[in-house]
């Protein structure tokens, strides 16, 4: 019975086996892009609605060479980073205080959890009313987005530290500061790093929306401006950049994660 299934499986994989394994992932995207290019080249699809991949690549290069792309890119990155740092640090600090202190948990945590139910992006109009469309409201918006994942995960990380380790630290007569630096922070690090990753993701998402709601610079502005003039290829370039940077920042934190958490036994397996 097993061999029969295995045989059927082998037959099913037959034509897949002819292709080397690492290439499998690329088969469908390459086929789609090729079809898209051919259909566009033959004039089957409107160039204003769906420019060919080649046109998009050309636009990418020309925007990159003219320095326009780089300029918008720098502005966006700066915004996202400052918002992330502001919100992430606040989240870390509050997460540490609610995680370590019973009283802080009882008073602050329920209010913060209540605030967390408000959809973040519905606050954009309010922020525009309060602070205008300037830098300040954007950075505040991003930091608010970055705050919650960081806060929740820091808190969770601290609370999931093994109680037995606390007992050990008591035997070693750790001071309060030593306890935090040498036990709690390392033990909560996996969760904190997860918080950093989620925070970065949210700040990037909020940046996208904040920039499309109204700015005069940044990748989001570039997209919105291009949309107004129906320059679809530039819209695509902007979206691709958003995707690449989002992916890259995630990978960087993952790399950091695997470096910093190398001491964990479960991690390698």
């Amino acid at each position: 019975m097993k061999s029969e299934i295995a045989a059927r499986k082998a037959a099913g994989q037959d034509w897949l086996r002819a292709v080397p394994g690492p290439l499998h992932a690329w088969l469908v995207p390459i086929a789609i892009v090729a079809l898209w290019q051919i259909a566009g080249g033959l004039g089957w699809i409107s160039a204003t609605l769906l420019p060919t991949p080649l046109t998009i690549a050309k636009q990418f290069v020309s925007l990159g060479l003219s320095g326009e792309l780089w300029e918008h890119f720098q502005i966006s990155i700066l915004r996202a980073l400052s918002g992330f740092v502001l919100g992430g640090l606040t989240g870390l600090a509050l997460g540490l205080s609610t995680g370590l202190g019973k009283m802080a948990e009882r008073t602050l945590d329920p209010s913060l959890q209540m605030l967390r139910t408000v959809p973040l992006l519905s606050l954009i109009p309010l922020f525009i009313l309060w602070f205008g469309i300037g830098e300040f409201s954007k950075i505040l918006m991003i930091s608010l987005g970055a705050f919650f994942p960081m806060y929740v995960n820091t808190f969770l990380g601290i609370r999931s530290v093994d109680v037995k380790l606390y007992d050990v630290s008591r035997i070693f007569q750790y001071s309060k500061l030593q306890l935090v630096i040498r036990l709690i922070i390392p033990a909560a690090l996996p969760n904190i790093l997860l918080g950093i990753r989620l925070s970065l993701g949210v700040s990037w998402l909020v940046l996208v929306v904040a920039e499309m709601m109204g700015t005069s610079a940044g990748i989001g502005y570039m997209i919105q401006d291009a949309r107004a003039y129906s320059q679809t290829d530039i819209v695509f370039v902007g979206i691709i950049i958003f995707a690449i940077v989002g992916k890259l920042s995630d990978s960087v934190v993952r790399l950091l994660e695997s470096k910093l958490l190398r001491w964990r036994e479960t991690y390698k397996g």
Partner: protein
Amino acid sequence: MLQEGISKGAVAIPAEPMRRQKRIDRRFLIKFTNALIGWMVPLVIVMVWQAAGALGWLNPILLPTPLAIWNELVHLTSTGELIQHLGISSWRALLGFLLGGSLGLAAGIWVGFSYKAERLVDPSLQMLRTLPHLAIAPLFILWFGFGETSKILLIAKGSFFPLYVNTFLGIRSVDNRLFDVARVLQFSRWDLILRLIVPASLPNIFLGIRLSIGVAWLGLVVAELMGSSSGIGYIINDARSFSWTTVVFVGIIVFALVGKLSDSLVKWLEGRLLRWQDSYKGGDKS
């Protein structure tokens, strides 16, 4: 000796329920004080806010008092305006969620079952997943205009991925030994799906549904803020342009409430449908 043992037992029997009662009382008291402390901070904030607003320390255009917001909420509800826009918004979110969610579920099941589909399709979908969900909005507006189609598609696109990823994960995490049992029982392929795989991957599918609803709601907010002529997002944006801050607040509160309610509804459904799970009862009692 024997006498003593018996008398001890006789004393212990009536004392036991009383002690338990006391313990329950104390637990209730702790819970109650915790809730009280939890509500203290928001209550104090709201009271200070109201007092400061009433004394004229706050600019009512920037920060109306809680009472004014409440009055606006009552007013908008009584005129039926709020209900009407909420209906439109909910309809959009529901349509988008159903479209994207069912596609995500179908794709997840397909990729979960077929080795070939996993090798070929999954990497492409994972690549698409890296696109920030809302960055696609301008492209959809270009393609489909500001109408319903672009909104619903945006919501559908958002709710596709959480359901897809979690269904796939759920199917792949079904215990292999259960498959062997199913083979021994000579389940047909259909039986296998309905009686083993769907129930076993249900927890993950529910997680996917909850995440999907959250994303659908978020997508709705942004789609309606970007440009529409009805719905809660429109109310907010319209009120913003006339500086009716109370209405903006009402809109945000409605968004938060409905988002929370839909999440609770799925959680409740999850609890009912997954009651057979052994591990489930112990974990989440609060």
